[in-house]
C-alpha cells in the first residue's frame, strides 16, 4: 500500500515545494537587486544642483539630517506615477526629500518639475550617470533613505506606493528617531 503511494507522495512533496517557491516570490519585484550598500555610508559625490548653475553639493553637505534620495528622470514614466506619493511624503514633513535627477537634460527636468510640482528641498543632477554607479543605481525610480550620519538605511527599487510607505518606509523612519 505504502509502496504504491510512494510516487504520489513524492509528487505531492515536489508540488508543495514548488508551490512554496511561487508563494514566496509572488508580488515580489524580481528585477529588484538587493543593495549591498544598505548599512554602509553613502558614497562620496559632488554634483551640480538643478537650476542653480555653479553650485555643487557633496555627500558631506547633506550630513546632519536624515534624507530620502529619490532617483528620477523626466524620461521615466514610473517616476510620474510615484510623484504624488513623494510629494505627499515631502509635505508631511516626516523627512527631507532630495531629488536625484538621473541621466536627464536640465531643461527637460525643469519642465517636468514645473508640470508636476517640485516637492524636493534640493535636486542634484547626475547628467552622465557616472556618480549613480557608486550608489548602485541602475534605473529610475529608485529611492534611498540616508540617516543623519550619512549611512544608507533603506533602498527601494521601482515606484514607491502608499503601501511601500506604510509597510517599509515609515517603520524605517521610526528606527531613525
Amino acid at each position, binding site marked *: 500500500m505504502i509502496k504504491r503511494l510512494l510516487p504520489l507522495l513524492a509528487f505531492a512533496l515536489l508540488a508543495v515545494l514548488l508551490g512554496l517557491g511561487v508563494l514566496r516570490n509572488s508580488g515580489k*519585484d524580481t*528585477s529588484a*537587486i*538587493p*543593495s*549591498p*550598500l544598505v548599512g554602509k555610508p553613502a558614497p562620496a559625490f559632488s554634483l551640480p544642483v538643478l537650476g542653480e548653475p555653479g553650485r555643487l553639493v557633496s555627500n558631506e553637505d547633506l550630513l546632519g539630517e536624515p534624507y530620502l534620495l529619490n532617483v528620477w528622470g523626466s*524620461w*521615466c*514614466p*514610473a*517616476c*510620474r*506615477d510615484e510623484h504624488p506619493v513623494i510629494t505627499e511624503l515631502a509635505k508631511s514633513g516626516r523627512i527631507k526629500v532630495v531629488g536625484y535627477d538621473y*541621466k536627464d537634460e536640465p531643461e527637460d527636468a525643469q519642465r517636468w518639475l514645473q508640470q508636476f510640482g517640485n516637492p524636493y528641498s534640493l535636486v542634484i543632477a547626475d547628467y552622465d*550617470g*557616472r556618480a*549613480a*554607479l*557608486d*550608489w*548602485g543605481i*541602475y*534605473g*529610475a*525610480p529608485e529611492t534611498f533613505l540616508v540617516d543623519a550620519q550619512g549611512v544608507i538605511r533603506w533602498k527601494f527599487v*521601482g*515606484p514607491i506606493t502608499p503601501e511601500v510607505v506604510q509597510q517599509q518606509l515609515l517603520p524605517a523612519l521610526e528606527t531613525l528617531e
Partner: protein
Amino acid sequence: MKAWLFALLMLLSAAAGAMDPIVFRDDAEEARFRALSAELRCVMCQNQSLADSNAQIAHDLRLQVLELMREGKTDREIKDYLVARYSDFVLYNPPVRPSTWLLWFGPGLVLLGGLAAVVVVVRRRAAQAPAANPSDDGQEW
C-alpha cells in the same frame, strides 16, 4: 509593475541613440574586455551579460569596466568594484559562501539522493530475484 516595465523599455529605447562603440587600444585589451564583460551580468536585463545588453546602464558599466582596466585594475578588483555596488547579482559565477552553498552543492546532493535511491531499488530487486525463479512461479502462464 506595468509602469516600471515601461520605464525599462523607455530606458532601453533611449539607449539606442546614445551609444558609441567602444574603441580598443589593441587586440589584447579587446579580448580581455570581452572575456570579462561576458562573465558579468547586466543589472537591468538580468538574463543578459554585460557584453550582450543594450541597456543604457550596461553601456555605462562597460565604459566603467574599460576605465578600470586602463587604470591597471585586475579582473578580481573590477569584479569586487561591481559587487560592492550591485551585489553578487552581477556575477554569473557567484562565489562559494554559506549563502550560496545550496546553489553550488544542491545539484550534487540531488544527484547523490538519486544514486542512493537507485542503489536501494537495485539491491531490493536483487534480494527478490530468487523468489522470481520461474520454477517457483505459481502463475498460470
